[in-house]
Structure formats: structure tokens, C-alpha cells
């Protein structure tokens, strides 16, 4: 409302000017009669400047807190969804929404909302001051006034619907170009880049044609708005002129009204200009809401103490990522405390799903999972993860030093502890050989590491979790070098005895370290037992080893 106050200062400004000029125009009076009134305009101008800037700053502050809040909420929400459900999303897209998308909300607050506030107040104020001095003009303004809310609605509905659709098309058009550019090598290899250029040109031309046909209609609403504003000003001027000629109106009142007439329509015209800001904000808001679409699962609260390695059981578990396509069907299995169990099976058998469920990243739709007798669904997810040392399939390297990557930013872990863990993971050697040793930056803009080195950093992370009662090793799908394979074998030998260990053996590289094997196929357990026994006469497992060339 501060903004409206600043805008309303146009009223005293117009009154002072009209009052100053009248004797000069009508009576050819000297400048000294006008000067005091003219000088009075200056403080009004200054005040208007001050109030406008203060109001706009307030808008900026409001936008800042909105952006900060939305960003925090979205990040919190996505984290709550859990890694398993995040994996299906393109994190680059999500990051664009969280960074640039949230930024696009600002002009909506600072421009559109602020100007809408002025629009609500200023025409009424002007009407109120014009009415006593010139009722004819106020009827003209009043006659066009209902047009204002009408066009607010028009701008807000019909045309905007079309505009939004076009806006989305434009976004899609940008992604078409990006698609083409990112896949240039592939296009060239297929001799398809000329065809792609044609496709791009056709898409651009189609977009232009369809958008222009929409805009020709969409701009009609602003044409009508402009028409009413202009006609109203012209009619006001002409009617004032004739009454002045007839002597039924004073010049001062007439000039005062004429000064205010454009201001009556100014906020509305401004709002028409702001429609881009609104469009961008709406598109961004839609993408933000898309991110918030999926609700996180209800979390348990129990925090039981585990005194030794727990037995972990899945009891008749059925689970589907998307309804109607079950990834697991009636799976029952048991990980014995203190033993190493390997999960094997063809790709798509459900190994990663079992892992997500056991880690508490998601919950089964049927059946239950127990660790040390406690139902995972009732347990606090973070508390359960505290019990687990995990080496994921594709460990992530964060922006930060090697040191911070191993201790995951936990300042309570000292450099010596990190070095010890790295040494146990056979990582100390290559880390000290890096340009800045443990202080070498990693992540997107830092040093890149080989797949094996990344695995060993993840092993070092796992070694730091000395209290963990469970060890989970999700074998990478890419081939590992010998040093890393040895490091993993060594780590399992060290860590396994006091823990319940699960190996997810996608490539069978670690399967020989297991005491027991569970064979999964098509979302069901088809074989389970001691490894030695299954190697000897297990139908599925023995076949798999033979196909992989591992059976002598």
C-alpha cells in the first residue's frame, strides 16, 4: 500500500501545478504569483521519489524471503522423498528449477503484485478528487472504469491460457535446441545433423506461426484497454474544452483533471507490460509444484539400540515402483548376523529394489522388513542409517576437498582419522599423489577420479562408520581395476565379522567373498543357500557362473 501512497502523490502535484499555471494562462500574471505554488511541487516530487523507492525495496525484501522459503522447502521435500525416489528424476532439471525457477518468482512479487496494489487504489483516489471539481469528467472516467476489472479478468483468463500454452511451447523449443547440441556427436556419427537442422528450422517456424496467430488475438485485449484509455483521455479533453469555451468550467479545474486523466489508466497499462514477468513466474511455479508433487512416505520414530549385528529379514514383501508393475513379489529372505550374504541375479531382477527397501529408502506395499526384530516401517530412517555402513553403486563426489568428501563435512572427524580410514580402504596412496593431497578439490569443478578411486573413497567413508552394525556393498556395474577389487575384498574381510553384511553382486566380482547367496529373478527369490552348496548343485546360480565364465 506504500506504493499506492507514492502514486497518489500525483494528486497534490497536479493540484499545485494547475493552481500555479492558471493565473499565468488566464490573466497573463507575473511569474511571482506562480512561483510559490511551483516551488511547492518540488517537495512533493522528492517525497514521491522517496516513498516509491522505499515501497520497491519492501517488495524486494518480500520477494527475497519468499524465494528463500520456497527454495528451502523444495530441497527439504526432495530430501524427504529419499534417494530411491530421487533417482528417477533428472537432477540437472530439478537444480534448474530450484535455482533459476525460484528466481523467476521475484518479478511477480516486485512488479506484478506491487503494480496490482497501485491499480486497486489509484483510480479510486483520482475519481474521488475529480468528482467535486468536474462531475462530467468523472462520469467519463467512471464509464470506462468497469472496463478495468473486466480486462483484469480477460488478461487473467482467456488470453492468458493461450499465452501460457505458447510459453510452455517456447520452453520446449529451447530444449529441442539443447537436445540437438548435446547430441551433436551422435547425430554426426549417424550422418543425421543436416536432418536435425531442418527439424530445428521447421520447429522454429511452426512455433512462430502458431504463436503469432495466438498473439494476434491475445493482444486484442490490450488493444481494447489502450483504446478505452486513449478515448477516455480524448473525450475528457474535448468535453473540458467545450465547457471552458461555454464558460461553465474554470480552467484550473479543467487542467487539474486533464493532468490526472492519464494517471487514471497508467497502472493498468503498466500491468499489461508486466505480463511477461507474470508468465515466467507462472511457468516457474508450475515446475516448482511438479517437484513437490510426490508426497514422501510416512516415517517411523523408534530408535532402538542394537547391541550386536542384527538379523535382517524380509517377510513376504511385495513392492512396485509404479502401480501394476511389481518389482518384487512375495520376497522372503534372511541375512544372518555376522555373515556375508550376496544378492545375485540378472539385471532387472529386483536387486536394487531389495537394497532400497532394506536401507529404508522406501517401504513395501505388502509384507514387512525386520532388523533385529524391529519393523523398519516403525523405525526412524536416520537412526537406521546410523547402523549401516554403505558403499553405494555410484558414490557421489561432492564439491569440496578429498578430506571433506571422506568425512562428509563432519568437523568432528579429524584429519588423522580420515587418513587411517583412507589407508584401510587402500586410498591413501593415490590421494597423497594428487596435486594437493587431501586438500585437492573434487566434484563438478574439481579433480576427476577414476571409477575405482571413487569406490575406494566410498570405502573410506564406510570405514569411518566404526559403530555400524550392518555393512552394505552395492557393487559398481562398471568394471573395476585390480587394486580396487583387492581393496574391496580386504575391506569385507576386515569389516564383516562384527556385522551383518549384504553384497549386491551385479557383476559377480565380489560373490566369492560371500558365505550365502540369494538368487533373485523376475522379482522373486528362486534360490537361496550356502554359496558352496549352490555352486555345486544350484541350478540358477551355477548357470550364471558358467555364463560369466567363472566356473572352472
Amino acid at each position, binding site marked *: 500500500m506504500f506504493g499506492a501512497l507514492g502514486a497518489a502523490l500525483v494528486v497534490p502535484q497536479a493540484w499545485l501545478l494547475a493552481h500555479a499555471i492558471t493565473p499565468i494562462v488566464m490573466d497573463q500574471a507575473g511569474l511571482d504569483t506562480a512561483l510559490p505554488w511551483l516551488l511547492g511541487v518540488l517537495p512533493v516530487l522528492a517525497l514521491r521519489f522517496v516513498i516509491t523507492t522505499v515501497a520497491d525495496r519492501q517488495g524486494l525484501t518480500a520477494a527475497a524471503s519468499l524465494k528463500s522459503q520456497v527454495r528451502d522447502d523444495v530441497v527439504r521435500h526432495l530430501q524427504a522423498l529419499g534417494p530411491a525416489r530421487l533417482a528417477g528424476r533428472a537432477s540437472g532439471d530439478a537444480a534448474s528449477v530450484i535455482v533459476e525457477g525460484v528466481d523467476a518468482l521475484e518479478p511477480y512479487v516486485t512488479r506484478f503484485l506491487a503494480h496490482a496494489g497501485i491499480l486497486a487504489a489509484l483510480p479510486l483516489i483520482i475519481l474521488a478528487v475529480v468528482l467535486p471539481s468536474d462531475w462530467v469528467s468523472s462520469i467519463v472516467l467512471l464509464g470506462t472504469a468497469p472496463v478495468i476489472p473486466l480486462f483484469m479478468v480477460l488478461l487473467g483468463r482467456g488470453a492468458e491460457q493461450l499465452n501460457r500454452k505458447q510459453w510452455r511451447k517456447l520452453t520446449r523449443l529451447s530444449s529441442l535446441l539443447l537436445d540437438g547440441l548435446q547430441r551433436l556427436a*551422435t547425430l*554426426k556419427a549417424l550422418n543425421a545433423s543436416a536432418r536435425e537442422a531442418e527439424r530445428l528450422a521447421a520447429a522454429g517456424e511452426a512455433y512462430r506461426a502458431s504463436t503469432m496467430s495466438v498473439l494476434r488475438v491475445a493482444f486484442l485485449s490490450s488493444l481494447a484497454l489502450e483504446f478505452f484509455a486513449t478515448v477516455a483521455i480524448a473525450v475528457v*479533453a474535448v468535453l473540458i474544452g467545450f465547457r471552458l469555451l461555454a464558460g461553465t468550467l474554470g*480552467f484550473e479545474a479543467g487542467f487539474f483533471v486533464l493532468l490526472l486523466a492519464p494517471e487514471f489508466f497508467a497502472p493498468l497499462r503498466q500491468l499489461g507490460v508486466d505480463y511477461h514477468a507474470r508468465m515466467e513466474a507462472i511457468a516457474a511455479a508450475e515446475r516448482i509444484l511438479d517437484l513437490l508433487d510426490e508426497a514422501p512416505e510416512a516415517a517411523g520414530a523408534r530408535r532402538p539400540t542394537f547391541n550386536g549385528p542384527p538379523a535382517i529379514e524380509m517377510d513376504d514383501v511385495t513392492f512396485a515402483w509404479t502401480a501394476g508393475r511389481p518389482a518384487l513379489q512375495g520376497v522372503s529372505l534372511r541375512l544372518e548376523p555376522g555373515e556375508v550374504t550376496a544378492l545375485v541375479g540378472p539385471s532387472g531382477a529386483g536387486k536394487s529394489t531389495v537394497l532400497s527397501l532394506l536401507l529404508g529408502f522406501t517401504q513395501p506395499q505388502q509384507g514387512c522388513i525386520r532388523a533385529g526384530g524391529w519393523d523398519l516401517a516403525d523405525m526412524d530412517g536416520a537412526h537406521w542409517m546410523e547402523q549401516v555402513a554403505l558403499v553405494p553403486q555410484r558414490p557421489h563426489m561432492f564439491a569440496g576437498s578429498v578430506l571433506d568428501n571422506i568425512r562428509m563435512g563432519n568437523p568432528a572427524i579429524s584429519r588423522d582419522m580420515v587418513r587411517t580410514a583412507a589407508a584401510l580402504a587402500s586410498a591413501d596412496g593415490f590421494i597423497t599423489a594428487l596435486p594437493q593431497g587431501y586438500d585437492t578439490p573434487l566434484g563438478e569443478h574439481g579433480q576427476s577420479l577414476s571409477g575405482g578411486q571413487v569406490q575406494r573413497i566410498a570405502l573410506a567413508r564406510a570405514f569411518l562408520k566404526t559403530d555400524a552394525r550392518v555393512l552394505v556393498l552395492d557393487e559398481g556395474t562398471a568394471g573395476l581395476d585390480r587394486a580396487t577389487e583387492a581393496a574391496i575384498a580386504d575391506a569385507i574381510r576386515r569389516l564383516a565379522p562384527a556385522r551383518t553384511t549384504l553384497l549386491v553382486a551385479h557383476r559377480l566380482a565380489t560373490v566369492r567373498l560371500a558365505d550365502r547367496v540369494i538368487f533373485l529373478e523376475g522379482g522373486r527369490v528362486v534360490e537361496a543357500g550356502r554359496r558352496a552348496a549352490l555352486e555345486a548343485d544350484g541350478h540358477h546360480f551355477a548357470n550364471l557362473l558358467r555364463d560369466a565364465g567363472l566356473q572352472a
Partner: protein
Amino acid sequence: MAILRRLFGLARPYRGWMGLAGAVACVTVLASIGLMAVAGWFIAAMAIAGVSTGMMNYFLPSAAIRLFAILRTGGRYLERLLSHEATFRLLAGVRLWLFRRLEPLAPADLMDRRGADLASGLQADVETLQHAYLRLGAPVAVAVACAIAVVAILVALHPPTGAAVGLLLVCGGALAPALARRAAAGPGAQAVRLRTELRVAVVDALQGATDLRAAGAQERQRAHVSALSMALIDAQRRTAVSGVLAEAGVGLCAGLALWSAALLSAASVAASDLAPAMVPALSLAALASFEAVAPLPAAMQRWGEVMAAARRLFALADRVPTVVPAVGPSPVPRDGSLEFLSVGLRYSPDGAPALDGLNLVIPSGRRVALLGPSGAGKSSIAKLLLRFWDYEGEIRLGGHDLRLYQPEDLRRMVGVAAQDAQLFNATLRDNLLMAAPEADDAALLQCLALAQLGDVVAHLPEGLDTWIGESGARLSAGQARRLVLARTLLRAPAVLVLDEPTENLDPTTARRLLAALKVATAGRTVILITHDPVAAETFAQDTVRLEAGRRVG
């Protein structure tokens, strides 16, 4: 300035549309000013006539008012249509221009020192540039033209008012935005840096969710993101404050113009140098003339952004391709044989060699397996055969130097199912037709069956019309790999390079796939790149081992 000139060069084909849109915009603004000025003069003249003679020819001024009203109304509509037309034409043109400029550069010359793809960073720049005309170029050009016209007319009518309004137009339209831009430079640069950092932190929080959860570090990462977000928002707020001041500054200048016009014209009237009716006319004209420069502060705020985007795009588009295509027509290959004679390759001048004096002869129609650890240079061979990178030494295909073939002809002969080959966000069919636009469904299904995807496709309700998602996201990693393979097979090239086709496959499917490929590729030269000795043994007639870019067996 050079960048500005090149931007104009890009816009050149659309200068007709742009000029027309600009001219109409000027007419609109000037009509708006004229409307107010004539209205002011009209009421004053009528008032004076009313108290003196009671006689006045009001037909001319009221006709002028009507004319200006029509010009302003119609002009605004027409101007918006024309400027959008120009923008969309420019937009399509710039995209195509960029695509065609970058195409010869891919992939070797579109990478930074660390091997990251530069093209993917362009999207924001292209978007910035496509709005440059509508939101920067047009407002500035129209403002300058209208300001000059208005000041000229005002000077003719009343020189002191003209001078004052001219001065204030410069203050409000040029000085205030320039000062604001300067004040915003520091926090603006800070915001750009913080935005990159924030993006990295957000991607870390999402992609590293598993690791963060395992380490109990989710809260820590969220706090990190939140702190960066606050810092960014603060820098943006400081940038925006100077913009706010500039905009309010324009308003202040407009008020001062109105005020000085009133004062100066009143003084002239008092001195009997000016007709009294000119006082409201000049005052209203002075006020209305700021309609021309009102969009400037917002436009100037985009200046730095647009120039930076243009600089980055031009820098990339100006790169000279390191792989020079052959001049004459391609030689006719004798057969499908391949010879590598002391071939060397480095991806960056200071990096380790990817291939280091490789010697290898593959007779036509032979199946050869390339074995070796990752980083041994296996995949580099495929890139050289497609002429994606330049190399030292000599490669001969069918008895002729590889460099003598036109790239398009070469790529018709050599098919590579690359590890990093990408799929398109389209249907299965469209992804396959990318390779051979004229292939029929029977051919597509045959290749899919070869790639062991026959059953998969048969079970899809929409079959070949199934949408495979962004980069094939709706397929498993193994399926995506096999779709790439099917796409390569569809083109039936004489020389085939299969890069790790069994990656992400379970051993059983892998065995079947290799058996099928063995039959289907009989008679063609095939290089199988693999790390898996079992696969090599099953498939190939010869096995070659690479290590550190050299042949070791």
C-alpha cells in the same frame, strides 16, 4: 563494440521487420506525446476564448486529438505484433545459426580442458539473446529516436523548455541507468558466482542423497544449500536496489521536466514572449515525453547479461574445427580392411596420450576384439574412425588414407555403437529412424531382435511407438545400450565398432547377444571393444590387447 556489431549482423536478415516495428513504436510514443500536448493547448485556448471573444476554430485541434488517439491505440497493437514477429524470426534464425556453427566443432572442439561439454552450458545464453531484441534493442532504439524527435520539436516551439527536457531525458534515460548499472556490477558478478555454487550444492544434495543419508549428513548439506541461497538472494537484492533507484529516478526526472516546462514557459509568457496557451501544452508534452525513456532502466539492467551471453556464444561459435574435412571427392574403398600405422592421439596438449604409436592391421571381414583396462585407448579408436578427432600417424580404410574421405561418406561406411551414444526423447521408432530415415518397420524389428530387444518391444503395449523418455530414461541401462546397438546395425555399415555391447547385461543375455551378432555381422569388419575376456573369446577371431594407448598382445 565488436560484439554489438556482430549482434547486429545476426539480426540483419530481420532488419526489415525490426525497423518496421521500431518505426511503429516511435509513431505510437510520439502520438501519445502529441495527444497530451494538443489536449493541453486545446483546453487553454478554449478557456481563453471562453472569457474573451467566445469564438474559436476547434475543428482542427479536436481532429488532431482524434488522430493522435487512433495512432496511439492502433500503433501499440501493431507494434507489439511486429516486434514479436521480428523476435520469433530472429529466435529461429539464431538457433539454426548456432546449430550450424557448432556442428563442425563437435565433439573435439566443444570441450573444455577437463573434457566437459560446453554446448550444454549454452541454453541460458541462447535464451538471454533471443530476448535481447524485444527487451533491450527495441526499447533503446525507440527511446533514442523518440527523445531526439521530441527535443527537436520542443526546441522549435520554445528553446528553454526543449533544453531542459533534453537534459532531463538524458539524466533519466541514460545517466540514471548507467549509474545503476555501475552500482550493480559488483553484486551482479557475485550473484553469477553464487548461482553456480548454489547449483553445484543442489546437484550434490540430490545426486549424493544416498551418500548423505548414509553419513547422516543431509541436514549439513541442506544448511549449506540454504546458506548459499541466502547469500545469492542478498546479492540479487543489492543488484535490484540500484535498479529500483534508477526507475524512481526516471519518475523524478519526469516530474522535474513537467515542473521546469511549467516554470520556463510561464516565465516566457510573463515576459510576453510566448502564447499563454503554450504553458499547459509544453508542460504536458514534457511529462509525456518520458514515456519514451521509461523502459530504459529495466532494459539497461539486461545490458551486461546480454553482452556476456553474446560474448560466450561468439567465442564458442568462432572456434576453428581441428578436424579439417577432405577437399576432393572420397576415394572408392577397395574393401573393409583397416590399418593403423603408428597412430597417436592426445585429447589435450598437456594430457597423457590416449593412443601412443598404435600399429594394427585388420583384414576385411575379420572380427577382432580389443581388450584392455579402462583408459587403454579402446574407445578412442572408434572416435578416430568417425573423424571426431585429429590424430598423428596414418589410418587406412579400404586401402586409402582416412583423411581423404569426406566425413559423410566415411560415416556411411563406419558404424559405431558408442558407449556414450545418446538416445533422443522420442519414440523407439524415431530413435531408430535417426540412423536410416527410409527403413521400414520390418527392418526395425529385425534389428531390435538382433539386439535381443525383440521380446522387450513385443511386450510393450505401444510397441515401436513407445516413448523412451529423456535420454532413454524409461529404458534400463542395458536396454538403452542395446537400442544404440540396434540403431547402428540398421545402417548396415561395412565396418562396425561395438563398444562394450554387453555392459550392464546379465551373463546369460550377454552370451545370447554375442551369438546373434556373430551370425549377423558375418563378412563385415567388426571391432568388439570389451574388458571381458570371455566375451572376446566367444565373439572374435582375433584378440588384441591395449594398455596405455599401445598394443601389448
